[in-house]
């Protein structure tokens, strides 16, 4: 559905919410998962994002695309979840159950289901680098849009992008060097 459609809506009714979720549900979930790397938490973030969108659609002014607006909400909700001590503990428990320095259930999921080696390595980048890289490479956002979503200066976005590219390139080229012992 074109952005024009969403720009002219004063608010969402249940049917519009279903349309919004059909169009952007997977986008929001994927972005949330890229940030939190935890399936249950990504479910919860996605739920909160669409509930916020449903309740506050009137605040969407149409200056950016509805996708960018949703990504910004997703970023903010995800950060709140990650800052919560509860989820720090939940992740820790999950990690312990997953086996200490071995892989957690979530890590195993990523290793198993990541769509290719590049995405597998992206998940291994620190969050702040992973995020800018994905917003540019996958979602096609420009520096100004990324800066607006993350609420950071454009210079910081550029610097993080530079580091993210450098580190991912290094990780990908070291693939052969970093191999498991027999």
């Amino acid at each position, binding site marked *: 559905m074109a952005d024009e459609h969403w720009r002219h809506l004063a608010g969402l009714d*249940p049917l519009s919410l*279903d349309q919004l*979720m059909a169009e952007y*549900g*997977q986008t*929001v*979930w*994927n972005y949330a*998962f890229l940030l939190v790397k935890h*399936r249950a938490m*990504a*479910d919860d973030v*996605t*739920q909160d994002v*669409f*509930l916020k969108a449903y309740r506050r659609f009137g605040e969407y002014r149409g200056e950016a695309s509805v996708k960018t607006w949703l990504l910004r909400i997703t970023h903010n909700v995800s950060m709140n979840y990650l*800052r*919560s*001590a*509860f989820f720090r*503990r939940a*992740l*820790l428990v999950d*990690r*312990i*159950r*997953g*086996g*200490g*320095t*071995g*892989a957690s259930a979530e*890590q*195993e999921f990523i*290793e198993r*289901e*990541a*769509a*290719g080696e*590049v*995405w597998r390595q*992206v998940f291994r980048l*620190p*969050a702040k680098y992973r995020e800018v890289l*994905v917003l*540019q490479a*996958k979602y096609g956002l420009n*520096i100004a849009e990324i800066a607006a979503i993350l609420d950071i200066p454009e210079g910081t976005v*550029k610097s993080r992008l530079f580091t993210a*590219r450098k*580190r*991912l*390139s290094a*990780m990908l080229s*070291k693939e052969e*060097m*970093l*191999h*498991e*012992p027999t």
Partner: protein
Amino acid sequence: MNRPDPDWYADLKGEPLRVRMFTPELAARIHEKAVRKAAMSEAPLSRRALVFGALAGCLAAIMLLAVQQNLLPWPGLAVDNSSVEMGVHTSTAGGGRDAATETNDAGTANEPEHVETDSASSETGSPFRSEIPTLRVEEPTLTEWQTLLDVSYPELQTEILHMESVGDGRQIVLSRNITVIDDVLHGVLAANKFVWKGDGWQRSGLSAYTDQINMKDTEFQVITRGWSIGANEQYIDGFMGFVLDPAITRVHVRDHLGNVHEAKLFPEAEGVTTWFVITPEPSRIQYVVEGLDENGNVVYGESISLRSMKYDLGKGSSSTLVP
């Protein structure tokens, strides 16, 4: 960014996962909640009050259960791991401070959690059990070390701040990830050990902490975390932490024999300084952490008693502010 996109950028145009995780069930759940919330907001006050009262009752019951089962969260968790090297269980321990003497941003006891995992049993069935990344470069660059750290501990997400050789083929790496939001320091500090295995570098141990500290509401001007990595009586110990008082320009640790171990300080862009020191054995009983100003005056002191954190895992240590 005027640079051309790397080749691998094209791979990122697609979806990150092979499976669709936004399911019709999740969409239905969101739809139902949205409609119910909307209905609640339109309900008469008396009905809303009833619903709110019922919810509050449920919440109280859940909180009570959580307290009874010790499920409530607390900030300031310590994450210590065991390491696995070709099936050999090498325990890695980290010290913490006594819950009764440490305060956090919420004004409640801050209890770093010590976790010991038995790799030999917990990783049964894991496909990652023997997959230890190996960096086959004798003298890696910083980028290569960072890559090894990233793939060795994908969930840690810290950046290397400092490296120190502790003997032939053994490196201790300090890494961290800190953010300050509304005067609350969210930090992850980790002491990592890497060893040369003859044909490459591999992880060998980790002692890490996550912290949330209200910088304007803590009595500690120097945040101290003990770490210890090793096995079979061959431990490497030290301390690391944050300096919150800008007047403190030096930190050192005195052991019970009077030896002074000067810490290395790393100022951060966030206005916090990270500090790190290795304390050579056998000083492992009583320590005093001191913060000094630019004139060399001790302006902060903290006595730390390690209750044999390596031999009595989980009981941690105690800490007392020195007046």
